[in-house]
C-alpha cells in the first residue's frame, strides 16, 4: 500500500462547447473514506464523476489514482484499476437475469476468474441485498428502485474496488430499498476498503453515510470538510441560495 491520498484531482477542467462544466477542480480523496458531494443543479457533480470514470475526456488538468494517471485511459480500463461507478438512471442489462448481471463484471477484460467459479459469490451478493428471490428473473422486470440496488450489488462483484462513484443513487427510491442500498455501500466501504464518492441531494443520506463532504458550484470546488463545518460556511449557503451568476 502506498501512503497518502487515493485519488488526486489537479485543476481538472471540462468544457462543453462554450460552457465550462468543471472548472479547475483540485481535490484529493483518502482511501477508505466515504465522501459526499453536494451542490446545486448544474454545478458539475455528474460531469466530475464522468471524468473520473473515463466516460468523458478531461480538457485540462490531471487525475491520479494511486500512481496511475487516468486522463488518457479508456473507460473500460478504469474497472481494472478498481474504479467502479453507478449511473443516475437506473441501468441494468435488461435481457439478462440478475445472476448474469452480477457476473458481468467478471466478464470484464481484466478479469481472469471463470464465470462459473463466481456464481456462488453472485448468489451470496443477491442474498445480502435481498434480491435472491429474483435471481433468475430478467433485470428488465425489476422496479427502478430494485435496479438501483442491483447497480450497487454489481459493484460488490468488481475486483478490485478501490473507489466507488455513486451518482444520485437514492433519488426517488422507496425507504426500504434505500436502507438496503446504504447497507451495501457501507459493506463495500468496510469489507473492501473502498473509498466512496457519493453525489446526492438528499442530506439525510449524506449525513448518515459520509464522513466528509465536498461542495461544488458552477463547476468549481468551493468547500471540503466535515459536514457540520462545511454547511455553515457562507459560500456554501450562498451556493444554495441560487443567486444567478
Amino acid at each position: 500500500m502506498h501512503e497518502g491520498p487515493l485519488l488526486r484531482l489537479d485543476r481538472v477542467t471540462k468544457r462543453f462547447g462554450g460552457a465550462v462544466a468543471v472548472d479547475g477542480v483540485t481535490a484529493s480523496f483518502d482511501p477508505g473514506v466515504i465522501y459526499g458531494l453536494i451542490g446545486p443543479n448544474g454545478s458539475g457533480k455528474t460531469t466530475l464523476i464522468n471524468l473520473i470514470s473515463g466516460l468523458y475526456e478531461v480538457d485540462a488538468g490531471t487525475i491520479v489514482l494511486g500512481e496511475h494517471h487516468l486522463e488518457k485511459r479508456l473507460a473500460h480500463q478504469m474497472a481494472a484499476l478498481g474504479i467502479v461507478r453507478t449511473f443516475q438512471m437506473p441501468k441494468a442489462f435488461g435481457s439478462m437475469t440478475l445472476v448474469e448481471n452480477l457476473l458481468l463484471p467478471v466478464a470484464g477484460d481484466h478479469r481472469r476468474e471463470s464465470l462459473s467459479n463466481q456464481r456462488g459469490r453472485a448468489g451470496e451478493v443477491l442474498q445480502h441485498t435481498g434480491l435472491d428471490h429474483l435471481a433468475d428473473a430478467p433485470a428488465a422486470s425489476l422496479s427502478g428502485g430494485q435496479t438501483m440496488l442491483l447497480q450497487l450489488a454489481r459493484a460488490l462483484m468488481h475486483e478490485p474496488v478501490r473507489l466507488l462513484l455513486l451518482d444520485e443513487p437514492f433519488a426517488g427510491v422507496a425507504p426500504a430499498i434505500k436502507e438496503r442500498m446504504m447497507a451495501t455501500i457501507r459493506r463495500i466501504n468496510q469489507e473492501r476498503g473502498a473509498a466512496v464518492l457519493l453525489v446526492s441531494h438528499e442530506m439525510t443520506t449524506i449525513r448518515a453515510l459520509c464522513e466528509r463532504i465536498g461542495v461544488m458550484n458552477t463547476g468549481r470546488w468551493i468547500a471540503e470538510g466535515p459536514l457540520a463545518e462545511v454547511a455553515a460556511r457562507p459560500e456554501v449557503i450562498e451556493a444554495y441560495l441560487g443567486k444567478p451568476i
Partner: protein
Amino acid sequence: MGELLRSLRDQPLRTGLGAAVVVLLALLPLGLNGYQTQVVMLGYFWVILGISWNLLAGYTGQFSLAQHAFATIGSYASAAAVLALGLPVPGGIVVGALTAAVLGYGLGWVTLRLRGIYFAIGTWAFAESVRILLSVNYHITRGDAGLPVPFLFATPDPFPYYYVFFAVSMLALGLNAVVLRTKLGYRMRAIRDDQELAVASGVDVVKWKRVVFVISTALAGLGGGLYGHAIGLLSPNQAQFSQMAFVIIAVVLGGFRTLWGPVVGALLAQGLAEALRISQEWRFVVFAALVILVVRVYPPGIMGGLAMLAERLRGRPPRSPSVGTPVAETPIAERGGVP
C-alpha cells in the same frame, strides 16, 4: 461436453427436446425424395446465415444488413480459389470463409463506430456495392450470366450435400450455444443491452463488437462457400437485398435473439411453404405479413413463445424475452424524451 452435461442437468426437457429435433433432422432425408431433400438442404443455408446474423444483430445489437453479401463473398472467393488457384473445393470453401472474415474485419473497423440507423445503412451500402462490383466486372465474374463452379461431391445426389449442410448448421448452432455461456456471450449481450454499462463493467466494447463481427462474417462466408459448390452456379443476385430481407424474416419469425429461432424460422419458411405448394410470391407475402404481426404483437417470435410456454408448464414465473425493453407507456401524450 461439460457444458452439454450441465445444460442437461439444468434443463432436461429443453435439452432433450433439442436433441430429439437434431436426430429427427438427421433422419429426415430418409423420408424425402431428392427434390425435397434439396429444398431442405437449401433451408440449412438460410439457417447458417440466420445464426450468423442473429449472433451479430440479435445478441450483440449490431443491426447489420450485409450478411448476404458476406455469403456471396464466400461463394466467389471460394470459386476464385478453386478456379484460379486450383485449390480443392474444401480448401476453396475455407478460403471463402477467411476472405469474408478479413473483409468483415475491414468493414467492422469502418462501421462499428456508427450507431443504429447509420450502421445499418453503412453495411447495406457495402452489400449493394459488392453486388454491383460482381455484376459489372463480368470479364471476371461473368456477371449476371452466372459463374459455373465445380461441385463439392462428384455425385449430383443431394443426400451427401444435405449432411454437409446439416452438420455445418448444427455446428454453428452448437457454437452459438456455447458462446452464449462464455464470457464472450456475456459481453455480447451486455453490449446489446447497454454499452455504457458494459464499459463501466470493464468490457472493451469496441474490441468485442469487432470480434463478433468477424465471427459472424466468417460463418456467413462459410455458408456462402458451401452454397456455391452445392448449386454449381454463382450469380451476383445472391447479394440482392431481398436475400437479406429473407434472412431477417426467417430469424424474426423463428425468434430474434433466441438460440433456435434461426433454425426454426429458416426451415419453416423454406420447408413448410414448399410442402404447402404455394407459389414463391404467396409465400413471401404470407411470411412478411407474419413477421409484421410477430413484431407488432409478439416480438419473441415462435421460439420465444415456446420458451414461455415451457416455463409456464414448469410453473415458473414466465420470463419476458422481448425484442425491446418496453418503456412505460404514456397514455396521455407521447413522451418528450426522458431526461
